[in-house]
């Protein structure tokens, strides 16, 4: 009884005012309730390109720099230039771009990388994203004025506003007119499923399904070099042990015709180590977002736990202290903030590291 032809349903529900009639509620009594203004305010945080939704407030470049160095630089670098963890934010834009609204480096095929400020057209995007999702390990913890300040600092690093600038809800629309790539977006494509943008309907590639003698003799133009053979791990272990094809053993050189050795021995899966101690530590790392900066066997922002283990074998107390007090300079210039981890939990993690950080 609830199945309606969609077209009829929609036509019936759009009234002269455009609002869906109250039939929705009448049809499904008892489902849903009105949201309170307080609830809507708590969740409706988005800011549109026309700045609808932007709360009042302000922040200076100088205040933004302080916040940046405390909460942002670990991942993004002191000048937003770092590509170590995420794509760089700052760089690649010029005074001329600010005039034209087109970032010239986007046309240059030899310019290394594309930063956030080279790409973004709408300043609202920056404000909205910092507000909803940053810092990485504590989203939505910045105050409104903090978000203005951090945004002001990034605008200053990009050469868009001067050092003594204060960004606020009153002047943000003016700053929008200076965004370096503000004219850099096009909607003239066929990849939007509706008609809302008046984009084009015709796809931009037109292949035809030729069946016979379609192309000249193909030449292999690109393939993986030999040194990359095992770069994704042993492919024999990434295929089922039975099947029409088995995975190639990429720990050995490529098989040649005439080799007597079996091309691909069925590779039995490795057993799960099922190490409960490691599982407990991994749970704590999730809780304290350690894994945002440290890998077990690979460096991220901070050192790999296995490297820490090699440097401080058995030194449980030292490792507890470092976790709780933070530090900088031993592994690089990006500081590790003090972690609010309990003594008992810190001991669990430190004991695991001191024993070698075994997966």
């Amino acid at each position, binding site marked *: 009884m609830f199945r309606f032809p969609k077209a009829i349903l929609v036509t019936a529900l759009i009234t002269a005012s455009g609002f869906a009639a109250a039939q929705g509620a009448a049809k499904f009594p008892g489902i849903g309730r009105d949201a309170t203004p307080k609830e809507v305010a708590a969740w409706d945080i988005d800011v549109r390109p026309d700045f609808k939704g932007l709360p009042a407030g302000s922040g200076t470049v100088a205040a933004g720099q302080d916040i940046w160095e405390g909460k942002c630089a670990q991942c993004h670098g002191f000048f937003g230039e770092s590509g170590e963890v995420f794509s760089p934010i700052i760089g690649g834009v010029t005074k001329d771009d600010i005039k034209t609204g087109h970032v010239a480096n986007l046309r240059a095929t030899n310019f290394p990388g594309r930063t956030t400020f080279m790409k973004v057209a709408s300043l609202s995007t920056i404000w909205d994203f910092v507000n909803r999702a940053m810092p990485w390990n504590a989203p939505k913890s910045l105050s409104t004025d903090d978000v203005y300040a951090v945004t002001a600092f990034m605008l200053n690093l990009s050469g868009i506003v001067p050092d003594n600038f204060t960004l606020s809800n009153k002047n943000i629309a003016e700053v929008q007119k200076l965004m370096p790539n503000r004219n850099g*977006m096009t909607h003239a494509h066929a*990849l939007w499923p509706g008609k809302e943008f008046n984009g084009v309907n015709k796809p931009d590639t037109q292949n035809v399904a030729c069946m016979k003698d379609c192309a000249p003799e193909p030449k292999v133009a690109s393939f993986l070099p030999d040194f990359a053979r095992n770069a994704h791990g042993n492919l024999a272990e990434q295929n089922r042990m039975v099947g029409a094809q088995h995975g190639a053993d990429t720990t050995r050189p490529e098989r040649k015709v005439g080799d007597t050795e079996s091309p691909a021995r069925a590779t039995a899966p490795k057993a799960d180590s099922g190490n409960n101690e490691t599982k407990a530590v991994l749970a704590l790392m999730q809780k304290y977002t350690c894994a945002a900066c440290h890998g077990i066997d690979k460096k991220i922002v901070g050192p790999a736990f296995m490297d820490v283990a090699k440097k401080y074998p058995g030194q449980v107390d030292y490792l507890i202290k470092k976790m709780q007090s933070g530090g900088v300079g031993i592994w690089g210039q990006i500081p590790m903030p003090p972690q609010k981890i309990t003594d008992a939990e810190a001991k669990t993690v430190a004991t695991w590291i001191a024993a070698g950080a075994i997966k």
Partner: protein
Amino acid sequence: MGDELGSGRIQKAPESFLSRDGIKTVFAEAKKGRRDFIRSAFAAAAAGVAAPVAMAQGNPVPLEGGDPNILKLPEHSTGLGQGVASDGGYGKPSKFEANVQRRQSPGLTQTTQASVSFAPLQSLFGIVTPSGLHFERHHQGWWDIDPSKHRLMINGMVKASKVFTLDEIMRLPSVSRFHFIECGANTAVDWGNVAVPTVQYTHGMVSCSEFTGVPLITLLELAGADLKNGKFVLAEGADGSSMTRTIPMSLILSGEVFVAYGQNGEMLRPEQGYPLRLIVPGVQGVSWVKYLRRIEVGDMPYGTKDEAVHYIDLQPDGQHRQYSSIQECKSVVTTPSGGQVLLDKGFYNITGLAWSGRGKVKRVDVSTDGGRNWRTARLEGPTLSKALTRFNLDWVWDGKPAIIQSRAMDETGFVQPTYKQLRSVRGTRSIYHNNAIQSWLVQESGEVKNVQVS
């Protein structure tokens, strides 16, 4: 090779030709271990071509006159097996299947929370991706959210902002539909040149499930949404990134977009947005907002981070295509595919997946000579709109190098492009929406490589 359409049967070909009956006989004889017969069968069929050797190498008759796996009864034939529900009440795959995993591509990302794991397409059958092997893409890590505390809010251009609990959403009339989801960046690393070895890493950011939920239009009606002037809808997640994307109202009005809680007969997996995810058929995965907490109706697009900084397609003139969303028609051969080894010459089933964000797949053609000649593959039913479609094609490998490709066509008549065609329009730096024809080179050694052809 053959030039007939629509059959998928072995066609007459200058090389590697066996009739259907011939193949049956070869298999029957191979089972008996009569290798001499097979040699002669191939020699007769492929006149002028050197006879392939050792057809039954993978399954020879042992010297002792029988296979010990047959002659010596194994423990599972002679002992007592395990009892019901002895696996903790939720069954797991065989331990021998542990190689079949979703995997990260080394070096692609520096964190595991803003990262990707790829589905092992080379090991999957049919069109449904097992929920535990469904590819993952997280922007700020995944969560396992208590469904009794999860809420969905509808606000913006509505008569009354509404709040729904999961209990209420699950009381509404539901739909169950099969759809593919593909990340806009699937196959991105191969835009410029070959960068990864296997189909898992080239195409593994596509998966397909049967999703169950409530059409979004139903919820918008309950809130009294302005369906005429509200041309755009913002979807927002409850995770740390509070992922947001703009969805076109026209797609919602069509009834296609729905709010899902079910996936393949059970609830969504946490990595897939448990307990609530938006389903936007045909549109790239980033719009399928996970942990869906809010829908806002508005009269202009929202320019969120993932539609103003990422998921924008750089064109050769320096402009970015914004709000590019549809995943155009695409296909890939999943076996044989890169990183695999053909065990011997002889018969193989070339199989793969095809899909289109504009509707049903109409036809898939397969080439084994790098795109010079094509044969039409069999489409295995069901062929559903905006869902993965499985195709198969018989093939006898003669032991010579072969370049395998597949080319899909959808019901709009759109034909999957070559790399050359795609690059001539979009260059090589657009990252997203790479739907080019994939090439796998089968070498004489049997090893298969990811290649691009000119």
